[in-house]
C-alpha cells in the first residue's frame, strides 16, 4: 500500500446508556479497538451490517466524532487534537446517505455551494463565486439552472450530486462517503457510483466508501475492510477478499450475493440466528455465536488480525 494518508490507530468509541431504573451506566461498544490505514488516491470500502460500527468509524475518521480513545492521523497530524482540526478541515469531507438531512432546505444550491467556496476562499467576488459554483455543477453533470433551485426541487440523485459538488469545492484529499447510494433507485445508483469513481480519479482523492452493497464495493474499491460488532474481521485488496476470502463472516456476506460471477462462489455459509447485543458482546471471537464453523476455542480466544497474504488480514485463525 502507498504511504498512508489517513491512519486510524486503536480507535474505540463507547456510547453510554442508562441501565434501568436503579441507575448505573453501561456502554455500547460501537467501535472496539480498530486500526485502519488509507493510502493516497485509493478507495477503501468499509463493509458491514447494522451495528457493525462502520458509520461510527467513518464519522471518527472524518473528524466529526471524537473517539473514546485512540487517534486519527492525517499526514501525521492528529485530527482530533484541539486547534489541529482547522488545518485539516478542508482536506477531509463527508458525504451522507441522506442528502435531505445534509443540505439545508432553506438555501438555494448556489448558497449551499457558495458557503463551501467562501470557506476555502474568504472574500471571493460574487461573479467569481457564481463561476466556480457553475463549474462545480458541471463536474457533477448538473445544469447551471440548478444553482437557483432549492433542494426540494431536485430528485434524490440530483441532491446527491450537489452533495458531491459541495464536498469537492474545498479540494479535499480524503472523502468519507457513508452509504451515498443506498437510498437511491437502482437506475440512479450506477450514475452516482460512476461519478464518484471519476471524481476520485480526476482529483486524486482517497475515499472511505461505507456500504453494504457488495456490487458497488466490487466495482469501485481497491481495498475492503469487513466489520462486525465493532471489530474488523477481514481486510485486504478487494480482489483478494472476494476471491480468497479469509473469514467465515465475509463468506456469509458473499453467500447472499447470488449473481456474483462463478469464480467467486465458493461459499454457501449461513450465519446462525440474530446478531448479539453490543452492550455485552460475546467473548472470544465476536462472530462465534453466529458462525456456522465455530469451534470451542472461538468462545475464549481474543482474535487478532493475522496476515494471510500480501496486505491481506483476517481475524479468523482457523478458516481457509
Amino acid at each position, binding site marked *: 500500500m502507498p504511504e498512508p494518508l489517513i491512519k486510524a490507530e486503536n480507535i474505540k468509541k463507547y456510547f453510554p446508556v442508562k441501565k434501568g431504573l436503579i441507575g448505573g451506566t453501561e456502554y455500547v461498544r460501537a467501535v472496539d479497538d480498530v486500526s485502519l490505514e488509507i493510502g493516497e488516491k485509493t478507495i477503501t470500502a468499509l463493509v458491514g*451490517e*447494522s451495528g457493525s460500527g462502520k458509520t461510527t468509524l467513518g464519522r471518527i475518521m472524518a473528524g466529526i466524532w471524537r473517539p473514546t480513545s485512540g487517534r486519527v492521523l492525517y499526514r501525521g497530524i492528529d485530527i482530533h487534537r484541539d486547534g489541529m482540526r482547522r488545518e485539516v478541515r478542508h482536506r477531509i469531507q463527508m458525504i451522507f446517505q441522506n442528502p435531505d438531512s445534509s443540505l439545508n432546505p432553506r438555501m438555494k444550491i448556489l448558497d449551499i455551494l457558495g458557503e463551501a467556496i467562501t470557506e476555502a476562499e474568504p472574500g471571493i467576488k460574487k461573479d467569481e463565486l457564481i463561476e466556480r459554483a457553475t463549474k462545480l455543477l458541471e463536474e457533477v453533470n448538473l445544469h447551471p439552472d440548478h444553482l437557483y433551485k432549492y433542494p426540494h426541487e431536485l*430528485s434524490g*440523485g*440530483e441532491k446527491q450530486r450537489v452533495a458531491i459538488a459541495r464536498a469537492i469545492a474545498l479540494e479535499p484529499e480524503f472523502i468519507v462517503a457513508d452509504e451515498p447510494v443506498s437510498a437511491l*433507485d*437502482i*437506475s*440512479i*445508483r*450506477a*450514475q452516482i*457510483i*460512476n461519478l464518484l*469513481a471519476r471524481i476520485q480519479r480526476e482529483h486524486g482523492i482517497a475515499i472511505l466508501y461505507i456500504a*453494504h452493497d*457488495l*456490487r*458497488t464495493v*466490487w*466495482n*469501485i474499491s481497491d481495498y475492503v475492510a469487513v466489520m462486525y460488532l465493532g471489530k474488523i474481521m477481514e481486510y485486504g485488496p478487494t*480482489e483478494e477478499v472476494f476471491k480468497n476470502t479469509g473469514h467465515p463472516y465475509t463468506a*456469509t*456476506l458473499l*453467500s*447472499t*450475493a*447470488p*449473481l*456474483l*460471477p462463478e469464480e467467486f462462489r465458493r461459499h454457501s455459509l*449461513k*450465519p446462525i*440466528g*440474530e*446478531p448479539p447485543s453490543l452492550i455485552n458482546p460475546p467473548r472470544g471471537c465476536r462472530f462465534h455465536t*453466529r458462525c456456522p464453523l465455530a469451534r470451542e476455542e472461538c468462545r475464549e480466544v481474543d482474535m487478532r488480525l493475522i496476515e494471510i497474504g500480501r496486505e491481506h488480514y483476517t481475524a479468523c485463525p482457523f478458516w481457509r
Partner: protein
Amino acid sequence: MPLLEVRNLKVYYDLPQGTVKAVDGVSFSLEKGEILGVAGESGSGKSTLAHSIIGLVKPPGRVVDGEIIFEGRNLLELSEEELREIRGREITMVFQDPNTYLNPVLRIGIQVGEVYEAHLGIEPRKAIDKVVDLLRKVRLTDPERRVESYPHELSGGMKQRVMISMAIALKPKLIILDEPTSALDVTIQAEIMELLIEMRDELGAAMIFISHDLELLGQVSDRLMIMYGGRLVEIGETEEIFRDPLHPYTEALINAIKYVRKTELPTLEGEPPSLLKPPPGCRFHPRCPKRMERCSQVEPGEYLVGSRRVSCLLYEEESDA
C-alpha cells in the same frame, strides 16, 4: 381458473397539483401457489398495486377502473364487510416496516392471538398455545418467552417473523409482501427469504412479492413482472427474463445488477417519469437507448412474444397475439 386475475386496473390519486396515475391499466393473473415478483423503482406503482388488491387504497387515492377477480369474485364490487372477511383470512399482507403495524404497548402473544379472535372468535388468551406453535413455525427463538415480549424487545428480523406468523396464521391463499426484507440486514434477509419459500411450499399459498431488488426477486419468484411509471413493462418466467430481457428497461435493470470491476457501471440516464405529467407515447422513451421516432407519439400496446407479454413497439411486428 387462476387464483387472482387483475384486469385493466387503474388507481389514481387526486392531488391539488393534478391527478397522479399511479397504476394505469395493469393486467396480470396469478396461479395457486405461484410466486409472482413485482419489480420497479419508486413511483412505478408497485406498492399502490399491492394495496389496491386488498382494498387499502385510501383517499385521495381511488380505483378508477378495472376488475380484481379473486376466486371468481370481483373484489372491487364487495362491501367493506365482505372484503374484511377475505382480507386477513384469504388474502394477507406483510409490510416493509413492522413497527407501523405492531402495537408497541401490547405483548406479542396478544397481538398474534388477535388474528384468531378477529376471524375465528377465539379469545387471545385461549389461543396462546396456537400462538406459540405459530411463532415456532416462523422459527422465532424461544417462543414461550417471546409471547410475553413487547415489540421493542425484538430485533427488526424478529418483528418481521412475527408479522409473517400473523400473515400465515389462518392459512391464506394469497400473501402480498411489500418489500418485506428491505429494512433488514443481508444475512437476516436471507433467512427471512428462506422462511417465506418454506411457507409457500407448506401452505401452498400464492405470493405477490414486491421489491426494488431484482437480484432478490430472481431468487424467489416463479414469474416476474416489471413496472415503470404506473404501467406493466414486461411479464414472464423469471428465468427467461433474466436470460433474455425483451424490454429495454428490463434489460437496463438486469445490466444494473451485474458485477463489473473497475469499469463504468452501465447506466440509464435521466430520472423516472413524473406520474403527474407522464411523457407522451411510451413512458420510458425519454430514457430509452433504443427509442424510435414513433415512441414519443404512439402508446405501445402489450405484445405477446412466446409466453411473455411486453409493452414495447419493438415487438409490435413479432407479436403472436
